[in-house]
């Protein structure tokens, strides 16, 4: 059997794996070329778990780049830090017919710091290389070895990293000692791995072949939820010289609590006294917590500095107390320490933050999930969540950044998966009431009041606290109507448990309604036109709507005297699995009243339903563009 000898050979001499392969681009099967910008011809990733503090990660890969758009797939990007060293890199580039065109080694790589935009400092660097080829196709072949001084975080194996890349064949080889325990999670791979025992060494191999490229599809589920992948988590691990073991979230949470958090909550005596004084008058824990949260928001600001134990350990509470700043870990740990003084229990929670709802995997505990920390207070059944990095966010409100997903609470008893509260379509409200006057020249003036709540609470957050001239500029982007001006702008934020933000603006829009002959053209839906979504022909992935919402608009126009208050009554109402829409235009005395309600539901729907969704939104868009013709009195 070819594979057997192949993996055995790998174990002995990792480099030069496909020395005899032919990289003639003509040999690529045509079904693999369809919709592909690049093709992984062959890839072998080998993880050799020599010891908990010595893991060799070897990659041998050949990629054919079909055109300029596929170039990114040829880019070789290797991160390293104190715990990760690059042992060797070498590679070759072949032209269209498979003839060697150049070779490269580590000295051809650019070396740069790898600090994310939001961070002041991180301990990470990157080496990267892109071959300079100007005729396509070409093939890049490389071998590299990375050595990890830890085995807590092992990169997931994802053979197809983007939808414009096809995979001819790809395999993942895990070498471990017999008796080493580790958990494996494989997704969408459709095969059992092959296992091979040689003396005390066990080799496990996963293989895939002929993964086809596909075109990108809008409103599809997150790639992570369906892509082919294998994840590995060893039971016994070593990390920055700290040892531990875990097989589930309970144990991993326990390890984090014991090794990263415990003992970092000591506050200076003055602060302890100050907090005691602060909450003295309050009788219940929630009110105490509210006061302490307010203190935190006034005292601290968010500054990201990712150093120490791989960026997992929070700065000591006393340091945050002295400096007045910290990252999410530091600020949560500080808040927890302050609550502790008042005798309020709280949990340090790891979350995957972002408007896309991504949960920690309940079935597979591992350290490389989550990118943010929030705080959870059980409060005897009245569970309350705190985002500690914002100076503005209301007490107990998470918003769409961390809502509705599983997070890991690290408690002294161990880790617990807890779900953050969900914001439903009916809670995510935007309610607008506008009272406008239409002049005979087509100008519109009046007052617009909009109330935002639920996940929409923060819609216009960026305007709050800005100077007037800046607000006027920003509002022109939100209400992008020709000739609009804002004369009075005010924001009121009600930071109750169900927070509400109210925007009150006085507007004037010169020439909003167009005049022609003896008619006036009026588009009653001035502020909220739903954009179309693009079609998605031959849909393969499910339709995924991440978060629902409800928008309600009521606009009344006081009509000028010389206009005949008469229109063809217009009423639209339709409903689908994706939401509902209704709009109505009517005349009441001298007023034209337009009402609109749009509800978008969240959910996952079969691929075939995408066309219905696009149609639904297109119908909304068409209805939103309603135009009325009003006649002048003669």
């Amino acid at each position, binding site marked *: 059997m070819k594979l057997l000898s192949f993996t055995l050979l790998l174990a002995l001499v990792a480099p030069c794996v496909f020395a005899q392969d032919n990289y003639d681009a003509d040999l690529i099967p045509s079904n693999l070329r369809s*919709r*592909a*910008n690049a093709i992984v011809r062959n890839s072998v990733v080998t993880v050799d778990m020599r010891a908990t503090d010595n893991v060799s990660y070897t990659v041998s890969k050949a990629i054919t780049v079909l*055109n300029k*758009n596929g170039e990114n797939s040829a880019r070789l990007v290797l991160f390293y830090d104190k715990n990760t060293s690059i042992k060797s890199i070498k590679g070759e580039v072949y032209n269209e017919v498979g003839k060697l065109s150049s070779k490269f080694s580590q000295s051809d790589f*650019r*070396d*740069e*710091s790898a600090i994310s935009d939001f961070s*002041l*400092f991180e301990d990470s*660097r990157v080496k990267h290389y892109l071959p*300079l*080829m*100007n005729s396509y196709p070409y093939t890049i072949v490389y071998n590299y070895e990375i050595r990890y001084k830890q085995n807590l975080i092992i990169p997931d194996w994802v053979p197809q990293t983007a939808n414009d890349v096809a995979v001819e064949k790809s395999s993942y080889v895990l070498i471990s000692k017999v008796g080493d325990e580790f958990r494996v999670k494989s997704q969408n791979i459709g095969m059992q791995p092959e296992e091979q025992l040689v003396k005390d060494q066990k080799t496990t191999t996963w293989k895939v072949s002929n993964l086809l490229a596909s*075109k990108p599809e809008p409103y599809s589920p997150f790639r992570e939820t369906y892509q082919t992948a294998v994840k590995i988590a060893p039971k016994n691990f070593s990390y920055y010289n700290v040892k531990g073991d875990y097989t589930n979230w309970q144990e991993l949470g326990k390890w984090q609590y014991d090794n990263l958090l415990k003992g970092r909550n000591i506050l200076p005596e003055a602060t302890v006294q100050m907090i005691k004084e602060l909450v003295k008058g309050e009788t219940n824990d929630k009110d105490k917590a509210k006061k302490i949260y307010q203190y935190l928001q006034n*005292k601290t*600001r968010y*500054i990201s*500095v990712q150093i120490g134990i791989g960026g997992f350990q929070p700065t000591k509470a006393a340091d945050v107390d*002295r*400096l*007045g*700043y910290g990252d999410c870990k530091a600020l949560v740990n500080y808040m927890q320490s302050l609550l502790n003084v008042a005798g309020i229990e709280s949990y340090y929670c790891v979350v995957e933050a972002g408007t896309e709802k991504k949960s920690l995997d309940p079935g597979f505990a591992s350290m490389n999930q989550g990118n943010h920390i929030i705080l959870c207070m059980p409060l005897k059944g009245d569970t309350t969540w705190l985002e500690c990095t914002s*100076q*503005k966010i209301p007490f107990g409100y998470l918003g769409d950044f961390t809502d509705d997903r599983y997070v890991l609470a690290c408690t002294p008893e161990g880790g617990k998966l807890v779900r953050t509260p969900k914001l439903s379509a009916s809670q995510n409200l935007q309610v607008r009431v506008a009272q406008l006057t239409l002049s005979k020249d087509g100008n519109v003036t009046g007052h617009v009041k909009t109330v935002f709540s639920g996940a929409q609470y923060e819609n216009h957050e960026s305007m709050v*606290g*800005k*100077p*007037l*001239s*800046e607000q*006027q*500029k920003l509002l*022109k982007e939100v209400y*992008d109507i*020709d*000739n*609009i*001006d804002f004369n009075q702008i005010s924001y009121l934020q009600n930071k109750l448990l169900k927070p509400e933000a109210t925007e009150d603006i006085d507007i004037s829009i*010169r*020439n909003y*309604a*167009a005049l*022609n002959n003896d*008619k006036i*053209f009026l*588009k009653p839906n001035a502020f909220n036109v739903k954009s*179309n*979504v*693009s*079609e*998605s*022909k031959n849909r393969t992935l499910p339709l995924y709507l991440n978060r629902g919402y409800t928008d309600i608009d009521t606009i009344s126009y006081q009509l000028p005297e010389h206009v005949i208050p008469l229109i063809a009554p217009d009423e639209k109402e339709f409903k689908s699995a994706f939401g509902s829409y209704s709009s109505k235009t009517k005349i009441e005395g001298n007023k034209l009243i337009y009402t609109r309600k749009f509800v978008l539901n969240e959910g996952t729907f079969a691929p075939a339903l995408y066309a219905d969704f*696009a149609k639904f*939104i*297109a119908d909304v*868009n*068409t209805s939103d563009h309603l*135009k009325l013709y009003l006649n002048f009195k003669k």
Partner: protein
Amino acid sequence: MKKILIGITLCFLSLHSFSQNFEFGSVTHADFDFDRNTIDSNANAVVLKEYGTTSFYLDDATGRLVLIFDYHTRIKINNKEGFKQANIVIPIHKNDRDEELILDLNASTFNRSQNGFVQSQMDKKAMFTENRSKYISLVKFTLPNIKEGSIIEYSYRLQTPFLFNYRTWEFQSDIPKVYSEYAAFIPGNYNYNVSLRGFYKLSDQKSEISKECLRLSGTPVDCSKMTYIMKNIPAFVEEDYMTAPSNFRSAIYFELADVIAMSGAKQSLTKTWRDVDYELTNDKNFGSQMKRKDVFKDLIPTLTKDAPDELSKAQAIYNYIKKQIKWNNYYGKYSEGNIKGVLENRSGNVADINFSLIAALSAANLDAEAVILSTRENGTVNKLFPVISDFNYVVAKVNIDGTSYLLDASEPLLPFGLLPLRCINDQGRVINLKKPSYWIDLKASQKSVSNYVLIGKLEADGKIKGTITTTSYGYDAFNKRKEIKRYNSIDEYVEKLDESMPKLSIGKHQVLAVDSVEKPLVEIYEVEFAAHNGTSNNQLYINPFFINKISKNPFNLNERTYPVDLGSASDQKISVMISLPGKYEMLEKPKDIAIALPASGGRYIIQSDMVDDKLTVNQILQFNKAIYSPDEYLYLKEFYSKIIQNQKTDVLLKKAD
């Protein structure tokens, strides 16, 4: 465009008293009570005082001359939006041998309490150095205990071995400044050209002699100390459609002109264009590469064998270089390697590619020159005297039968004679191997033109079926070609285009001349879309602006400070002809109008008609200039508003009996 480059005459008269650096930590109640309304009610933070000096210093340890830049600032933080002023990043330059150093960093936050001021000093540990790349490091730090109303203060010394980098002083930044002072110490034997950019004038300046400020080879040297002061400087706010911020931001620049050695010999550095011409034409990474005709000698006969005249020869060579050498995405006025190697490796920076082009054109006995220029985002160049570091790009110029063509072979999708938009930036300097250099205007040689023709038939159900033919030239064609090339095939491009417009479906399609960049790009699409909902057939309202309807005003603000730069003149024509299902009468239509911008800056014309049961609508939208002054902004706004007004109205058709 207003000239905003002012040469500074140094006057040796001093009538005003000048302040010195202020004492660190000498904050006062007046600082805390500072009312931002006195300078800018919008300010999230305000620089209260800022003081800097640059001087020469003989480093005893190495015996080398270095530049010392001392900086000290005091900032009031007004609100949470201003907190980011407390996060500071200082870029540090370096190369293989030398590196700039940050010394004596001092930083503190001051907050007011009941019993005075509380100083929170920054821990030295809170300073990080990020090794960004081979040429740059970033020194970063953040201040502790920031609150609304805090005063922050920091000072540092930056020591640089790069004597050419005499510190530019930026009077204007993203927050307003109450007082900014810069003192430049320059030894008598060094001569710098000094220039002030921006819209604001100095509040004060003076020059005095600083005795024996430096010892060179044991000889004491006097320095001139020049002090520049600006007060109440507004924040710099970027606007849409503007070129490089550095063109407009108030700052003072120093360019080393000459040095007199202790022996008395004068060493001139970029003093006149004649000197620059000599240097460039003899530079091994400039003139020497232009001269490498030998590299192409054997190739030229094959390349140009079918070319009947000089122009087609030049085009053949241009196409060859475009195809042969791939741009590595780096700009530059100097080649990185030699063009022989570049041709072999088939890759290079802008200079490598365009020097290859010049050498190849010369090898074919064509009259080719180089043009150095500054790209749009790099700012305009100093025209008063040569500042070679202002230039960051080089293109080719070929002169045929009295016409000159500017060529950049780094963008394969550009037609012959059209520079990429990034190069369209005022003027460039033509460098000739034999003749003196001179300025040349950098303008787009072609207008951006798009012509749309829709011929269709209105069906009884309200649908229009027809064909849209689009012809594009200039940057319009270039941008479309770039977009098409993002897809693997034209079919995939059209599929995406079709999917992006759910109300319109595209049937058969044809896209011509995608790769023949000298020809206009032609797209022909069979389309179907709804013109009305088909419910009423007796009276039809149809909005005839099916193509590129303008509903948003790109110039929607109420004021403008800087010129509006659109890059190139443009021209769009749209013709629609729809056959109607039977006899109709046109009761109403959008007004036929012809409006224009002042001084022939642009125009918009619309005309609609009904002839033989066919509805025709013709529109022309032209912008005749690339740059409009801030005064013209409101005209542009009104011009667009008028168009939007007109396009809101419909055609009303009544079925004839």
